Each structure stands twice: as C-alpha cells, then as structure tokens.
C-alpha cells in the first residue's frame, strides 16, 4: 500500500533505488506479519486458564536457544542481502558519475536556489554566464552534472521525482548528476532547516524535450554559436 506513495520516478537511476525500497518493503512486511502474528497467536493461545501452569523454559541453552538463534541468523542474512543490493546502487548514484552533457551550478542561499548556467562557451566565470533564481532548465535524456554550493548555511537540494538529494555546505563544493527520462516541471524543495524562510524555499526543475530545450537556449543566449559544448567539462 505504501509503494504508490512514492512520487513518480523520472530519472534513470531512480528505478534501482525504488527496487531496493520494494525489496526492503516486502522483507519488512513479511517480518512484521510473522512476528506480530506470532505475538498475537501466543497471547491468545496461552492466556491464563484455571488449573494450567506455565511451562518452565529458560531458553538459555540449546536446543531451546535455537528458536532464538535461527531467526536471528535469518535476520543477519536478509540484512546482508539488503546491504549488498544497496552498495551497488549507492556507488552508481554517488560515487561513479557518468560524464555530464550539461553542467549547471546550483547555489543555495537563504532562501533561494541560485542557478547559474555557463552559457554557450560551456565555462563558468565568463561573461555569458547566466543566473536564473529557482529555475533549473535541462533537456530530457541528457546527463546533467550539478555543481552544488551554499552561500550561508546548510541547505539540501531535493528532487523527489528524480530520487536525488544532496546537502550543500558553505565553503565546499559538491557534485551530483541525474538524467531525467520524462519532460515536465518538478519542484525542488530545500530539505534542511535553513532559517525562518526554510518553509517555501522551493525551486523548479523544468525538463524540456530536446526541441524545447534548444528553443529555450536560443531565447536566453540569442547568439548564433552552439549553445553548450558537450563532454568537455571537468
């Protein structure tokens, strides 16, 4: 029943995160039913009856202790299963970013996302850089690399539809990436308490189709040159 509550996934790596969530969901659901079921059955079955004494079982030694140790061993195995599945997914999202096709810098400050586009030359710190607050324009099916910064306190960039979150800390620079699989407009709430304007600190991710994106680029940088150099980012 909870599976439907996750927002629609529109990223290429999100499906894997969702599948681990599903794995955990079914394992924990099964454990819940088995353990709470046993509890309820035992409680009803062994309720006080006149003339009936409780059994004397300490459970400290085998074979009784096996009733403790075997389920515990099973828990350990399931735990390791979840961890090993998780390790691969984590590495893909956070450790091994593919080369980015669009590079954009996002800076959190009380209480906006400053979004900086490198412009047609593909480099930051040149006159054609363009800053638009709270609007992150990208093209569908392209690997977007984000450089993340903060100007004041800790914020957290959260893209629920893309299964992406990263805290930004003043004085440091972080890298994140995503590849959106579907055009649309998605919200970017700040997820770390950052002061009195934390509530309502929200940007928008606008995922364009390839044609729309080219059109948007032409509107922002009316120059004739190619909008962005691809694959030459650091």
């Amino acid at each position, binding site marked *: 029943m909870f599976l439907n509550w996750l927002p629609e996934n529109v990223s290429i790596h999100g499906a*894997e995160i969702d599948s681990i969530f599903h794995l955990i969901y079914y394992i924990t659901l099964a454990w819940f039913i088995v353990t709470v079921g046993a509890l309820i059955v035992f409680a009803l079955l*062994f309720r006080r009856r006149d003339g009936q004494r409780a*059994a004397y079982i300490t459970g400290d030694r085998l074979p009784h202790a096996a009733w*403790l*140790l075997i389920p515990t061993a099973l828990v350990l195995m399931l735990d390791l299963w979840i961890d090993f599945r998780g390790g691969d997914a984590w590495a893909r999202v956070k450790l091994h970013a593919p080369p980015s096709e669009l590079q954009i810098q996002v800076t959190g400050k009380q209480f906006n996302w400053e979004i900086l586009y490198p412009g047609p030359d593909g480099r930051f710190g040149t006159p054609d850089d363009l800053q638009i607050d709270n609007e992150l324009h990208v093209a569908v099916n392209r690997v977007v690399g984000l450089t993340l910064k903060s100007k004041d306190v800790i914020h957290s960039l*959260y893209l629920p539809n893309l299964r992406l979150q990263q805290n930004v800390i003043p004085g440091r620079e972080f890298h994140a990436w995503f590849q959106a699989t579907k055009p649309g407009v998605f919200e970017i709430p700040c997820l770390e308490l950052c002061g009195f304007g934390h509530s309502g600190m929200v940007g928008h991710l606008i995922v364009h189709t390839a044609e729309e994106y080219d059109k948007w680029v032409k509107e922002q940088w009316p120059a004739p040159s190619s909008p962005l150099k691809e694959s030459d980012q650091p």
Partner: protein
Amino acid sequence: MGEGTVASPVKPPQGIRPTMSHRARVDPIRLPVARTAHEDRSFWRTYIFSTDHKTIAKQYLFLALFMALLGGYLVYVMRWQLAFPDTSIPGFGFVGPETYNALTTNHGTIMVFFVAMPILLGAFGNFLIPLMIGARDMAFPRLNMLSFWILFASSLVIMSSFFVPGGAAAAGWTGYAPLSARTEYTGVNWGINLWLLAHALEFASFLMGGVNFLTTAITMRAPGMTFFRLPLLVWQQMTASVIFLLSVGPLIAGAVMLLMDRLLGTSFFVPEQGGDPLLWQHLFWFFGHPEVYVLLMPGLGAVLEVLAVFSRKSIFGYRWIIYSTISVGFLSLIVWAHHMFISGMDPRLAMPFSITTILISVPIALIVFSMILTLWKGSIRFTPPMLWALGFIVMFILGGLTGIVLGSAPVNIQVHGTYFVVAHFHTVLLSVVIFGSFTGIYFWFPKMFGRMMNVPLSNLHFLLTLIFFNLTFFPMHAVGLAGMPRRITNPLQYEFLQPVQSLNVYITLSALGLTLAQFLFLINFVWSIVAGRKAEDNPWESATLEWTAPSPPPHGNWGDTIPTVYRGPYEYSPPGVREDFLPQDLAPSARSD
C-alpha cells in the same frame, strides 16, 4: 505493616516455610541507614531536598510529566499549523515561521532530554536499581540529589529561553552549524545560548546519574546477587549508563565549541574562518544515535520484567539478552554517520555505516524474538502493565523495521529529511517513551505510591493510546514517502504536497485524540495516589527483590536486614514447587521440606 517494623520481605507462598537463616544476617554498615527511617525529618529534607532514591525518582517522574505537558502543547500548536496553515490556533494565536522553528526545536529537545530521559533513566533507574539489587540507597545519595536539582535548573533554563528577546532556539533540535553558530542566520541570540546551557546542565546531571547507577549496581548488590542474577532492567540501565558516559563527552566538547563560536567569535564550525560544519554533525550524532539506545534500554528492561511476571514464565534466553544488550551498546557507538549519508561527508563512508546500522538490527531482533518466545506456553494475565508491554512489542517492531528503510544508504537519498524520518523515529522512540514508560509506571506504581491504579481507566487509556498512536503515525509514513519535508511551516506552499494535505489534517486530528487520551492517565495517576486501593507488598506476585520491601518502601527500603539472594530473577512456574514463583530471596532450605 507499619513503617519501621522488621519487614517480612515477602509473604511466603503456601506450603513453603521460610527459614530465618537468610534474615539473621545483619549488615553493620547499612543498619544505620535503615534507622534513619525512624527519625523525624523536616518537610524539606523528606520531600524536596531528599537523598532517598525513591523520592528522587518521583521527583524525576513529576518533572518529566510536567515537561511532557509543555512538549505536548508545543506539538499541538505545530500540528494545528500544519493542518490549517496560517489560521489562528485556539490557545495560541497565529504562529509565524520563526516561532514555528522554535517550537519544533524545543519540542524535540524537551521530549528527548526532559521527558524521556527523566522517566526512563531518572525515575526508573533511581527507583529500581537499589530496590532490585537489594541496596538501601544509591551509592552516592547526595550526588543523586544534586543530579536531580541540576536537571531541574536545566528545565528552568530551557523554559526561560521562550521569554528572552529573539525567542527560543530555532535551529532544530540537532542545532546544525552554521545556522546555530551565528545569530544573523536565525535571528535568535540568547535563545540558542540558553538552549546550549540547558544541554550542558542536562548532560552534567545525567553524567553524575550514570556514574551513580554504575557504582551502585556494581558495588552494592545484596549478598548472593551475582551479575547473572540481576534483573534485566538493571543490566539495561547499566548498559545505557555506559553508552551515555562514552558518547556524551564529544558532544559536550562540541557544545562548548558552538557556544564559543556564538559568544567569543571563534570559528570551529563556521567555514568562512576555516571551521567545519560537518564536525558538529559528527559530534552531535556520535552522541545522538547512542542516545536512542540510552532511551531504548530502560524501556526494554521494563517490558521484559513485566513480560516474565504476567506470563508466569522465565524470560526466554536471559543470558542471550544480556549478550545482545552489550552488543547493541557497542554497535550503537559506530552507527552515527547513518544520519549523514547525504550530508556531504565522504560518500565512501556510507556503506560501512549502512552495514553497521543494519547489523544493529540483529541483536535487537534477538531481544524481540526472546520477548515473543517468553509468551510461548505461558499463563498470560492481561493486566494493564502487560497490555502496555505487548503494545510496546508491536510498535517497536513496526518502528524498528522502518529503520531498515532509512538505514539503507541509497533509499535514504529519497527519504532523508522527509516526514518518513519523523514517522519512523516517533514510532520507534514513542514505542519506548510512551509504551515502555507506561509499562513501567503501571507496573511499579503500587510500589512507588503504595496504592493500586484504577484498572478500567488504565485499560481505556491503553486502548485509546494504541488506536490514536497508529492513526497518527502510520499515515505519516505515507506523507513522508510523498516527499513532505520536515520542519516546514506550511505544506500548501508546495504544489506536490497538495494531494497529501488531507492526510495532514487527519494526522493532526488523530494527534489531538492521542493527546487527550493521556489525560485519562493523568486523572488516574493523581486520583490513585490520593485515593487508590492500598497495595500489598507484592500485588503482582513477582520474584524480584523490589517486591520484598513494603509498599511504599521506607527510607532504607528494608527493615533491619537486607534480603539475601539465592537464585535468578525469573523463577516462575518452576517444577516441583506448588506456587508458581520463587522469590529471589527465599532460602533454598525452605523448599526442601
């Protein structure tokens, strides 16, 4: 039996004649303490500045219940605001975002440090450790009194912080720097300073308490009370004390550094001058996560005692639980960074911490299995404490399992910082703080106050709490999965949260029901203290030592002799004995004829 008479420790079960042998031993060192029970003490020394561990335990309990009302009031304002944003809240008025942040911050701080710890450690630990091990008081009674009064001062400090210019602390109960380190980021100046001061006093109080607990439990056990005859609650209070003592030091250092950043302009956590905001998070969570287990352990202990008594069965796997408890204590010290998967720490650290985090579920699972297996072939009595204990197990399993979702690093990316976290830690922590505490309070109330609580009212309180608890926190998981951020003032500011707003209203109404249900307890509690039926010494027919003292026990707990211990704490329904329990202090020779 009157105060000061030589107490018969327990009414011997029929057919078993107690010998005098185990009563003949008079402890010359402890005798004078017992005699003080006869002396007239002033009102102040008896009820206010008392060194009696039982009085101090009650003081912790009363303080915690008062602070719970305050923390509950804060959450009432918060939930109303979330359900009906920017409307006037009955009994409060409009709440702005600055005030809202102060409410969340102090709700967390008050509930963890001024409600949960005083009840589970302060009240249960103080009341039960000496009584359960057969000691006349704590090892350091005056230090014990000082611990309470420092906590009292600390609670005055945290309450006064609401009335200083700029208002109370508003940087979250986790106080992440640099938000908490510079006044201009929150607009709160003295609020955060006082918040830090309150923590400092709180930690000093529980540090002294922890030293006292450990010293008492290790050095003052009655004759025959070996470590493996200790009730599990004592083991768990000891483990909690050790974890607290080991983990709180780094946070005290951190709090001093943060205070210096604020008052002296140093820069331990402010990056512009070379500080590191992540250092604060490491120091905070190095304490903050073990703290969860510091709270859990005494709750588990209370539940285990109750399960054995009302199943009339030995705890299944007593020694395994002790080993698991120690393992949990150790593991709890190496899981802290699971709060920081997406904080910006080296991402290669995520998997090691994910593994330790999920591994801690192994010894915890063993304890849960043991609780369930204790019921197997028991003779279960559904008394109020037993209902709370069973409720605890169910809620604790639910809260523990959702922790696996958060403990998995990749899934954490999606749910970190959302209401899923809020739902998880309220389920798991309140299973301890609500269900665990009430298990203990309903169970030991007769010993504490010498009277019984009203049973139908207790049962109704349990039923309504169980229902409203789940109606409140279960849908919160869904809101969290939908992505609702923590600590926001107004969900209507987000388009993607519009579909869950009806759930927010529903959660708020359920939370109101949960709060109102607690007044049933308060009425029962106060009424029973004044006019409850007088309790016998051992109304639940329990085998542990606290029930061998009179109800309520006098200063010094036992008459001229302290009990001698002959067996483990859970000898229920042993073969070859007519009665269905053997008190720990019943001499073996009494059984032979």
